[in-house]
């Protein structure tokens, strides 16, 4: 038996005092397999040891919440016996190492989190952050990540309807690849992961187990590897075809009542799934590892417990249901094996080749996982940038063309077209606007509005305001399609938490998010934390990606950003001060990355949001776009390009200089376009609601012009907007 040396402990990422605690729990020295189990369960990824005390501050309750954080995904009531189940996850590091497979298996993982709860996935979204376009690796990473996400989701037949893609040198060595899935289930058919029923069979289904992704203990595991002529790759390869079969087989089994509990095998595979199921159920599990379906020969207990092979699930079945369940999985050509049973010992007991190779008390393994209140310092508040100090654009038209051709604002069509965003036939509002709208299957009228958002440059400048802004931007995007925002999931991507300033960013973002969620009745129901996104002391910009979902009671009453007709009046909802701090204009046109980000007024967000949503729901507005990155003029241009109709704009009375008025990124704003004879009534309604509303122009023509003098043709705008990404990728 391998002697556990301090080196081996360190290889497993356990600190000396953490190992002391292992010894106390075990009452003896653990063997290598047991050490491996502690190491993964107590890793940052599984134990949330640096983030847990702060995550507790997020509001997670509300009448709509059926299941908040703690299960595989969050569950929200959408009425008529239906629930939306959703979550977001990161696959940052694997995607940097092997972009195609890393991104693909990220999608595979988040899909399993959702269908393991009984939901059929109806949408995928993928917020992505890459390094500078000039960085030598960026193009290769973009192309691989996008192909991988498409490769997996397309084969699964789940439409990919949204996400983000921005570029910044802070991500040169650490790209972010996040993926969100939304599914629909019946509220009386939701599956949880708590094991129960002493003696019940533990069943393994899906793909066979190989030596995929076993990291940490390279040295320790090397000695088990008889074929060590090549260094074993730690990346996992996904098989979306098998996952599609697994999805169909699981849903078929779930239609009956054979399942007591079910849990996907994600990170730390068999270990985390079995430990979590046992811990939630307050029971023990006994596993016979010889019965685990294996792809490779001579696998050790250590390898089986730590393997991250994809497309696998663990279930507890009711007694006597094994054969019926097996028939379903065999019909779909999948492995099915009874590998153990539920026990009353409270221990995870592993047997292999006739011997007990592991015996760990489950409760302390999970409950006594390390918990750190890491030192943190708040991010100093940056100074406000005065619009007058920022060089004005002499020609707003030319500036607009430049803005639309920047990497962050350009069209992401090159990406969207590689994703099947129409499969299922339920995509009502396609990607490229604000939220996507997807019809709820098997319901006559309901639709879901779904979006992901975050503005890392705001979070970097001021994590509290940035955290708030990420939440409200999802709220606005959902509202702009007519949806009522219900709840969010998040993916917290940060640098090294052991640096107090990074920890301060994390704490600040959580504070801002919490405040926004509370004010908007918009709780967090699931999420994920990805720390250590950092190479050689340079971390990513703090990126709390937020995924929001909202409900449309009637999907035929939705709005989209596309101008539908000429001669309509363009109205601006919300107030404009001309905020240029941390804006795209400041960064990409004026070459300055500084200043306080636009402040978020949560009361105004709610007031303006309720007003706009009401108009859409009453069928008074079908064209709406929220104003975000790039400001007002960029938003107008996006609406114009989507509809192929220009606009004639006139600057209303304002104290702001022109460039600040049109490119400032003040929050809480929407653009709507309405037929002329509705304007008066809408103005009156706004007054009554205390909402600021200004007429800013009229739709029509093939030019966007401001105050007569500043002009950009749609053709020039389209070329800049549509051209950048394909040209970059082909260069």
């Amino acid at each position, binding site marked *: 038996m391998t002697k556990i040396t301090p080196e081996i402990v360190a290889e497993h990422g356990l600190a000396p005092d953490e190992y002391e605690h292992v010894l106390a729990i075990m009452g003896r020295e653990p063997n290598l397999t047991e050490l491996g189990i502690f190491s993964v369960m107590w890793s940052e990824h599984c134990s949330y040891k640096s983030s847990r005390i702060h995550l507790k501050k997020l509001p997670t309750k509300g009448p709509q919440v059926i299941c908040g954080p703690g299960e595989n995904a969050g569950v929200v009531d959408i009425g008529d016996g239906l629930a939306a189940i959703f979550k977001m996850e990161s696959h940052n590091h694997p995607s940097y190492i092997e972009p195609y497979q890393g991104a693909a298996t990220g999608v595979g993982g988040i899909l399993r989190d959702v269908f393991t709860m009984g939901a059929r996935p109806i949408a995928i979204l993928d917020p992505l952050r890459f390094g500078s376009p000039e960085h030598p690796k960026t193009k290769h990473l973009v192309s691989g990540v996008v192909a991988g996400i498409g490769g997996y989701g*397309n084969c699964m*037949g789940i439409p990919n309807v949204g996400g983000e893609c921005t570029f910044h040198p802070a991500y040169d060595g650490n790209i972010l690849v996040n993926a969100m899935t939304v599914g629909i289930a019946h509220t009386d058919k939701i599956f949880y992961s708590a094991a129960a029923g002493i003696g019940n069979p533990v069943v393994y289904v899906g793909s066979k187990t190989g030596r995929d992704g076993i990291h940490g203990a390279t040295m320790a595991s090397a000695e088990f590897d008889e074929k060590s002529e090549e260094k074993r790759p730690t990346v996992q390869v996904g098989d979306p*075809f098998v996952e599609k079969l697994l999805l169909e087989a699981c849903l078929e089994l779930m239609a009956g009542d054979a399942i007591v509990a079910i849990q996907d095998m994600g990170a730390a595979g068999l270990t985390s799934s079995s430990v979590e199921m046992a811990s939630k159920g307050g029971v023990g599990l006994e596993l016979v590892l010889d019965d685990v379906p294996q792809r490779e020969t001579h696998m050790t207990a250590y390898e089986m417990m730590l393997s991250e092979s994809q497309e696998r699930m663990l279930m507890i079945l009711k007694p006597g249901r094994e054969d019926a369940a097996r028939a379903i999985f065999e019909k779909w050509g999948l492995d099915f094996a009874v590998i153990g049973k539920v026990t009353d010992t409270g221990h995870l007991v592993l047997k292999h080749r006739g011997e007990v190779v592991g015996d760990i008390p489950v409760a302390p393994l999970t409950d006594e996982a390390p918990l750190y209140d890491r030192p943190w310092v708040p991010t100093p508040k940056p100074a406000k940038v005065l619009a007058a100090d920022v060089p004005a654009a002499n020609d707003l038209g030319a500036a607009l063309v430049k803005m639309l051709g920047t990497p962050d604002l350009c069209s992401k069509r090159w990406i969207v*077209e*590689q994703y099947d965003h129409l499969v299922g*036939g339920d995509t009502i509002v396609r990607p490229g606007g604000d939220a996507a709208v997807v019809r709820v299957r098997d319901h006559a009228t309901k639709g879901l509005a779904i979006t992901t958002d975050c503005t890392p440059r705001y979070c970097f400048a001021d994590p509290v305001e940035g955290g708030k802004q990420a939440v409200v931007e999802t709220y606005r995007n959902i509202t702009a399609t007519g949806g009522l925002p219900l709840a969010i999931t998040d993916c917290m991507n940060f640098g090294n938490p052991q640096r107090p300033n990074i920890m301060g960013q994390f704490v600040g973002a959580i504070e801002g998010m919490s405040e926004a969620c509370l004010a908007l009745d918009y709780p967090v129901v699931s999420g994920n934390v990805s720390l250590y996104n950092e190479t050689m002391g340079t971390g990513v910009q703090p990126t709390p990606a937020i995924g929001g979902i909202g409900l449309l009671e009637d999907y*035929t009453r939705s709005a989209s950003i596309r101008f539908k007709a000429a001669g309509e009046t363009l109205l601006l909802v919300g107030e404009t001060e001309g905020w240029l701090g941390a804006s795209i204009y400041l960064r990409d046109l004026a070459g300055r990355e500084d200043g306080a980000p636009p402040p978020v007024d949560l009361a105004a967000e709610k007031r303006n949001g309720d007003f706009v949503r009401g108009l859409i729901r009453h069928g008074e507005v079908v064209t709406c776009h929220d104003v975000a990155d790039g400001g007002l003029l960029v938003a107008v241009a996006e609406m114009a390009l989507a509809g192929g109709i220009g606009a004639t704009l006139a600057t209303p009375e304002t104290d702001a200089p022109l460039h600040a008025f049109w490119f400032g990124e003040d929050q809480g704003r929407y653009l709507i376009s309405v037929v002329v004879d509705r304007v008066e009534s809408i103005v009156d309604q706004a007054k009554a609601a205390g909402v600021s509303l200004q007429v800013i122009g009229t739709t029509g023509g093939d030019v966007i012009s401001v105050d007569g003098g500043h002009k950009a043709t749609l053709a020039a705008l389209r070329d800049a907007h549509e051209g950048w990404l394909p040209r970059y990728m082909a260069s």
Partner: protein
Amino acid sequence: MKAAVVVFPGSNRERDVALALKRASYTTPAYVWHGDTELPAGTDLVVLPGGFSYGDYLRCGAMASLSPIMRAVKDHAARGGHVIGICNGFQILAETGLVPGVLMRNASLRFVCRDVHLKVETTDSAFTGSYLPGQVIRVPVAHAEGNYFADDETLKRLEGEGRVAFRYCTEAGEIAPEASPNGAIRNIAGVLNEKRNVLGMMPHPENMTETVVGGTDGALLFDSLAKALA
């Protein structure tokens, strides 16, 4: 019309097409498992739906074309029964030889999902009877391997016999190379077999049958079938 939609492991647009058929014919099609050996009695139309049968591994459609049900599908076609293969279904038909040609990797080497325009090249079939000759329609594509290829002799026959059902075109109806999403030879998007009872096509008319999803140009194909096979 009695329709049967074959479900292969990895099919993913079976429900989309079943709903489109139901909207057109007011009859719910039957789903048939690839491992079955018979079609439901009285089947008029067999649909091979879109998706990634067998993961599209080896060659798209290759493994599915050898499924037990395909023998019954071939018999059905030989008897004059109608068969439509859409996207992956077209790839399966090509692999079985029920329609000529092959579908290669898109010229861009990338998966492509977007609306395209198609010119209806023949209305002389049960699939296209409700369209106007030369009509330009808008429907989406979603595939990585839709680059149609056939040798010159085959192309000559196809064109000579009016068996090209659809070609990719511009919004104005021009058959230009840049209108093709995949590099298909002569912009071919769909072809008929010799007896005109089997159609293979890459685009997805089933995803364009309702105003609320963006248009109804695809509905006419199902309407054609419902009328012809009433």
